[in-house]
């Protein structure tokens, strides 16, 4: 049984205590997976609001070019107009923004659900 391929015969070896422990563990793992998944969605959303608060394509081209030309017009060619001066650390403003973003997203979420209830009675 050194490989991770389990057979029905292997599963039959489980006693009740270990079965219960596995069930509990799997429930916990599922919960961990859900929280991680929600964290991924929130990070992606809040990254756009707090760290990269501009839309990179289409209508934003005027605003993004104006910011990059004001900061690094001389070396723009070399960096291809990209954001060159990106630190790998979060500053305190960004951290605060991320925390607020999560809390306000949850608030908006509850407000939507609450309003849905009143709409349901209306239609």
């Amino acid at each position, binding site marked *: 049984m050194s490989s991770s391929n*389990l057979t029905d015969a292997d599963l039959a070896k489980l006693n009740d205590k270990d079965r219960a422990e596995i069930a509990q563990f799997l429930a916990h793992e599922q919960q961990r997976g859900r929280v991680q998944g929600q964290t991924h969605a929130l990070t992606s959303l809040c990254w756009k609001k707090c760290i990269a608060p501009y839309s990179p394509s289409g209508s934003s081209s005027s605003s993004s070019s104006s910011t990059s030309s004001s900061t690094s017009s001389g070396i723009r060619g070399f960096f291809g107009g990209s954001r060159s001066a990106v630190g790998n650390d979060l500053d305190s403003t960004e951290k605060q923004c991320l925390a607020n973003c999560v809390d306000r997203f949850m608030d908006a979420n509850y407000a939507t659900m609450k309003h849905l209830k009143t709409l349901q009675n209306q239609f």
Partner: protein
Amino acid sequence: MSESEEVKKTIIKMALAETNTNNARQLMTSINKRCFDYCVPTPGSSFSDGEQQCVKACMEKYIKAWNEVNAAYLRRIQQEVGNQGLNISN
């Protein structure tokens, strides 16, 4: 170790590996999207040095942002559990 315990440990190891692989895959997908947006707003004819440096820094920063968001989310969930009755009833 009993046979039962051996099977249990194998199952637990498999489940952990699956959650962790899934998490890493989702993280890489997000990083690729967000850091491409962030570092290559206007794709040129080559991947410049500046863009490469940006992607590396962005990746590290994104992971830090993930940890911040995760902490904030867990804090919020714990709060909600604390006053669940209040929030759901009204």
